[in-house]
């Protein structure tokens, strides 16, 4: 009988991260890797995509996938900039409205998957294209900034609303970005959903075996729909953070983030087959990919080489984890 350890996947996820960190320690570029600024930068760089990865984990646990998060992030960033700047709404109503937009995008994807029975890939691919189009439509294809051309043809300009600085603020003596705090909060919330809520149990059950879950009385369709709604909410939060960091709403922003978020979830060891994994694993995946980018850029790899190496390393890490998981049964 093979011994089963509940935390085995966690141990397997830590190995690729350790290797990446070890590489950083070896090729440290005259100590640059040991500088606090380096780690602070990694944390800042991963936070926005990390928020996406948290929501993505919920969807992947149900054996789904959400390709729309990058576009929904872009739509949210544009909406947030529009609401706060040209429309002159307050911070709180703007944030609330953006969250509603993200949730609606998720709701539509979820209904397409759970009710219309489209394949998650197809449903969210459609939402990905649609949301990007909507972002461009709303922004008329331009970045939404503090200066805009009014309907009367007069250029208007305002100060950057304080909420931007507040979200992009550094706390703890400039060592920690508020965005990272928001990332941590999202991760904690998703962890609570998966590990403590009845909904989380139902997400795992539906992802593990939808038919068995249905026969056990789990409301399969609403469970799946909720996963996409929560994922859309995370994308909206990430969009607000992105707008705050960029100080404008760029309709092109977030393109390709969905793939990075999926890569992070998979690197953590959450299976695309559903039913297994968790936010804790995703956090490790987020750190792994973040540090990998940092180590490669410190060592002056070109962008091209970095992309190719990243692809190869994702494959190697996932193969390694599958091998280990197979050994544990």
């Amino acid at each position, binding site marked *: 009988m093979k011994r*089963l350890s509940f935390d085995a996947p966690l141990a397997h996820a830590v190995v690729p991260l350790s290797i990446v960190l070890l590489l950083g320690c070896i090729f440290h570029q005259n100590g640059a890797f040991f500088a606090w600024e380096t780690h602070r930068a990694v944390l800042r760089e991963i936070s926005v995509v990390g928020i996406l990865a948290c929501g993505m984990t919920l969807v992947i646990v149900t054996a789904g996938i959400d390709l729309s998060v990058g576009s929904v992030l872009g739509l949210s960033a544009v909406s947030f900039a529009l609401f706060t700047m040209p429309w002159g709404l307050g911070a709180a109503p703007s944030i609330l409205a953006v969250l509603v937009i993200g949730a609606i995008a998720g709701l539509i994807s979820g209904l397409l998957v759970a009710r219309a029975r489209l394949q998650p890939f197809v449903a969210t691919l459609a939402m990905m294209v649609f949301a990007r189009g909507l972002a461009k439509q709303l922004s008329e294809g331009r970045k939404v900034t503090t200066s805009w051309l009014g309907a009367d043809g007069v250029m208007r300009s305002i100060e950057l609303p304080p909420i931007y600085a507040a979200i992009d603020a550094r706390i703890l003596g400039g060592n920690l970005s508020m965005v990272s705090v928001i990332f941590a909060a999202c991760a904690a919330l998703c962890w609570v959903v998966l590990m403590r809520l009845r909904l989380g149990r139902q997400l795992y059950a539906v992802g593990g075996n939808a038919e068995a879950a249905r026969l056990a009385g789990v409301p399969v369709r609403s469970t799946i729909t909720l996963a996409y709604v929560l994922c859309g909410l995370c994308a909206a939060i990430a969009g607000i953070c992105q707008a705050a960091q960029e100080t404008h709403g760029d309709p092109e922003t977030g393109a390709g983030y969905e793939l990075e978020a999926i890569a992070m979830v998979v690197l953590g060891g959450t299976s695309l087959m559903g039913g297994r994994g968790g936010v804790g694993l995703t956090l490790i995946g987020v750190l792994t990919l973040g540090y990998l980018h940092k180590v490669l850029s410190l060592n002056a790899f070109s962008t091209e080489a970095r992309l190719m190496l990243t692809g190869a390393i994702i494959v190697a890490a996932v193969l390694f984890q599958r091998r280990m998981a197979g050994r544990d049964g």
Partner: protein
Amino acid sequence: MSAPLIELRGVSKSFGATRALDRVSFDVRAGEVHVLAGENGAGKSTLIRILSGVYPDFEGELWVGGTAQRFRSPQDAARAGIATIHQELSLIGAMSVTDNLLLGQAGRAYHLIDRRRRRAAAAKMLERLAIDADPDAAVERLPLGTRQLIEIARALALDARVIVMDEPTSALGESESERLFDRIGALLEGGAGVVYISHRLEEIYRLAHRITVLRDGARVLTADAKDLLRAELIRAMTGAELAARGAREASARAEAIFRVDRLRVDDHDRPGRALVRDVSFALEQGEVLGVAGLEGSGASELLHAAFGSVARGTGSVRVANESIQPSSPGHAIRHGLMLLASDREASVVKSLGVAANLALSSLGAFSRAGFIDRRREHAAARDMVARLSIATPSLLTPAGALSGGNQQKVAFGRCLLARPRVLLLDDPTRGIDVGAKAHVYSLIDELARDGLAIVLRSTELEELLTLCDRILVLFRGAPALELRRDGFSRERILHAAMGGAS
């Protein structure tokens, strides 16, 4: 009679602790149909899988045309001239009729590119069985009966010397079956031999030259069909009387807690036909109703339709006079109805832990404001693990890591934790070993004594005779016979299940 085309000598096969076949000898001669009879689980399927090379490992000898052989794979068997028509359809749904028919005919001149010749060859194969199907149609769009015929046509086209048919008519209508029987006649004239498995007495006696009966993996008899009376065949299949448990003491029962009225389930593969037709019954507290029926009798669909996991056509289902909505298992569970599915793939979530599986149908009872109370959940799970003696390293062990019998107990425990008033058990002992079976039997008895109303479907007649107060026999979806405990008769039940007049 001529020498055997193929012969098994003293063949045994075990799966873990279960002995599926025990020193069985069997042969087929040219020009004969040799029927293999026996109840479900008697070892028929194992035997034909050995014949067709699916199980390369077994004890004993396999002789083909006078030489001892050993098939390493189904391809070996095909090369030795043995074609098998399996019960489960092995066609590829999205491919065309032509492609399916010519699949496995690699090596023929036209096998790759010549579309016209492929189409003509397929059309000829269809014609031989008078199959009405467009050679270009995707197989999945055809009715089930036609798919079965195509499967048969494909096997026949291999020009095999021995053709093994595992319940080939289970999805066929009468005229389709007739065409198959005609083809079998032609095959025999051509010098082939046929191994034929069927549950239908009519068919058996119409086709068989010889009959071999298996029971519990052993051969009971082999006889010429003309010398074997129907009653003898049935007795041979069912075996000795099992000591029946004393009748449940009749109590002053209240009115029915579970009532199914004129339930109908439509067959979506064959429009206009029904899987379950106008079945009605009522159950009192503490009563166990057995549902007997062979493959395709609709017994399993009846349970699923009552539970709401299969769409029902017409009819009503009531628990304690409250109507159960169709197509919502959650609704049924909240009203005290619970189903244990026969397919373990559909009764446990293998990636979830034991405790999580046990609690899955009663999450509402274990959570407050959406949060799961893990202490209470684990306490209840621990009690259930002890009560059902589930062998598991821990409550968090993924259910998939347990043995089949223990997975079944986890599914059973999940049903019980939901505190049902009516329990629908769909073949609850399928594929579990004898010890686990005994445990399930005593559990069913205990639950009935505690006042649960239980509907038990089983493919094993013994089980029904032992556990039930009443038995309802279905044939092709319709009630064929209902017996009370004092009138139980193995022969009458089997006869009714096979479509004989009662």
